[in-house]
């Protein structure tokens, strides 16, 4: 069974139809990259996966939890689906009044009711992994942007999710800090995490993603292995987009 299955996703904000029937699947341990111009609906797809947005129609299944949004799902259903994934935000959204360690153990201890010692031990391993094990007691404001985003990644991983969602994780960073965050994400892909990532880093997507979905106007225009979609796009709109993005560099 595939890990993620999305069928017939529709979403409108007021009169603006943002998603017009999005379907895709992702296998366990793969990295899926969502590319597309701004307003194409890629972030809405990602946020629908953990119900930060509630689609108007469609079915989202992650592992064994499936929610049909055609009728408004109950809080409980949504919470079950949300618990399957974890989100890394563009603006990291760390809790500013909590230390690095407290940020990471908040979910495990309070929501998942795991023993605090265990959560702290796990958090230390994760911080080691993202390369900031010396900042346990720092407040987020005392860290650089790259460090903040790496703590954000550790906070997501600490939930032990089936899927890790990244919403433009490097877009808010100064250019010289992008590399350290991408390196961490690349490591995660190597460790077999199932990931969905919305990004503008085309070269990175090409290297790391197993499949690339190119969205435009609320539908998936082109999909396939990253080497194919980015290296040899078939659709005119994909080619235009890639040309525009890559020419900037």
């Amino acid at each position: 069974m595939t890990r993620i299955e999305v069928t017939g996703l529709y979403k409108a904000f007021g009169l603006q139809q943002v998603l017009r029937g999005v379907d895709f699947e992702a296998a366990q341990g793969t990295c899926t990259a969502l590319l597309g111009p701004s307003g194409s609906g890629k972030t809405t797809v990602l946020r629908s996966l953990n119900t930060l947005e509630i689609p108007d129609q469609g079915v989202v299944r992650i592992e064994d939890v499936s929610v049909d949004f055609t009728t408004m799902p109950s809080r409980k259903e949504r919470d079950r689906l949300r618990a399957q994934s974890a989100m890394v935000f563009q603006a990291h959204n760390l809790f500013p009044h909590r230390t690095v360690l407290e940020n990471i153990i908040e979910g495990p201890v309070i929501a998942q009711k795991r023993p605090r010692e265990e959560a702290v031990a796990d958090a230390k391993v994760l911080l080691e992994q993202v390369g900031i094990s010396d900042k346990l007691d720092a407040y987020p404001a005392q860290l650089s942007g790259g460090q903040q985003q790496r703590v954000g990644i550790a906070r997501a991983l600490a939930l032990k999710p089936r899927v890790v969602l990244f919403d433009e994780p490097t877009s808010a960073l100064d250019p010289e800090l992008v590399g350290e965050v991408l390196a961490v994400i690349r490591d995660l892909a190597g460790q077999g995490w199932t990931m969905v990532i919305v990004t503008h880093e085309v070269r990175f997507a090409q290297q790391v993603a197993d499949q690339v979905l190119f969205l435009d106007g609320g539908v998936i225009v082109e999909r396939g292995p990253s080497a194919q979609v980015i290296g040899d796009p078939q659709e005119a709109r994909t080619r235009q987009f890639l040309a525009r993005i890559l020419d900037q560099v």
Partner: protein
Amino acid sequence: MRSLVLLLQLFLLAPLLASPAQAAEQPVVRVGTEGTYPPFSFHDSKTGQLTGYDVDVIKAIGQKAGWRLEFVETQWDAIFPALESKRLDVIANQVAITDARKAKYGLSATYTYSRGVVVRRKGDERIKSLADIKGKTTAQSSTSSWAKVARDAGANIEAVEGVTQAAALLAEGRVDAIVNDNIAILDYLSSTGSDKVEIVGTVDDKIGEQALAFRKDDPLLAQANQAITELKADGTLRGISERYFKADVSVPDGGDVSSQRGHRSIWAIVGETAWPMFLALLKVTIPLTALSFAIGLLLALFVALARISPVRALSGLARAFISIIRGTPLLLQLFIVFYGLPQIGLKFDSFTAATIAFSLNVAGYAAEVIRSAILAVPRGQFEAAATVGLSPAQAYRRIILPQAGRIAVPPLSNTLLSLVKDTSLGSVVLLTEMFRVSQLAAAESNEFLALYSFAGLYYWLICVGLSAIQKRTEARLSRYVIA
């Protein structure tokens, strides 16, 4: 006379000059007194010490005369036999001077004059003297001799248990006057601070005199009379009397409460009022502020959450509540709770009513502060809290409110400072908070500027203290923010 003064001076100097062994030879004078007769002779409820007007008077006399006093608390029935059997040397217990006692005992100069007075409701111009009570109703203890005086003057008698009840009936307008002993009335006025009733006239032929009783021919009597003369001359006796009765009962024409005023300096008045004001601050103003603020904040939190709620009915209710509280005067809110609600069966005492009104008022204002503070927390914080699995309640408690709190502290401090000062409105619902105490003192002494300025100083000091706390709280809540 001169030799007597010399002798007295010797007595006074003796303790200074004499060795301890000689000091022990000061005459020991055993004083008989009831100890259960307030305000003349009783035990202070706080300290347990024997005190009272008579106790203070005999102490002052003893000091002048160079006696060592030994108090012997004795029942009234046994007090004269104890004097005769030399177990006591003097009785200080409002012994009334009568011809029979004059013949049998050595009675000192008078140190208490009492007389009948007519008491009316404050400002009731119909009653100016005993003659005016004809056809009116007076409140009297039915067995007292004053009831007879009133009846003889043509008044109807409403029988009561004592002065307190009589004064209450008079204040409420159920009776027109009281005829009673001035000392009982003065004691009532002084101990309750009541300004609802006042003394207007005297019953002239009824002057009573009270004195110390010694054994006939006891040389102590002469010393006592000398001391009383001196104590009257130097104002000591008047001071003691004013302490208990706010009037001088040691002279025949004393007892007019207002006649004693205006002699004291502003500093004395402010000094006397400072402590009662401080106590009222401690016992009423501060607890009222703290309680109202705590309850008000809690209410405000719920109102703010209701206001943000997507449920229309809830947000509508919250909006209406805020609008009403902010759109009506605080004074009116106090009046509605204290005077209005009893008409639909909800009766509260002054403190409770004030707490309710102030809490609701704080809630109305603080709700908007808290709402805007919550909305000022970035949306991403709600989302991040949700994605790590926190329930909405957990998210609010652990993530949103701590951050909103930091934003809300400065405006909420304003609310608190306003509240401290607004508690002065409590006086209109009969709450004796600090400002009320200064009002009462000012009305009595006419020192408005001094007393109100002093009250202002107290409020200002509290607000300075609270501002300092605000500063520290802000610093503590902002420790995670890098400047």
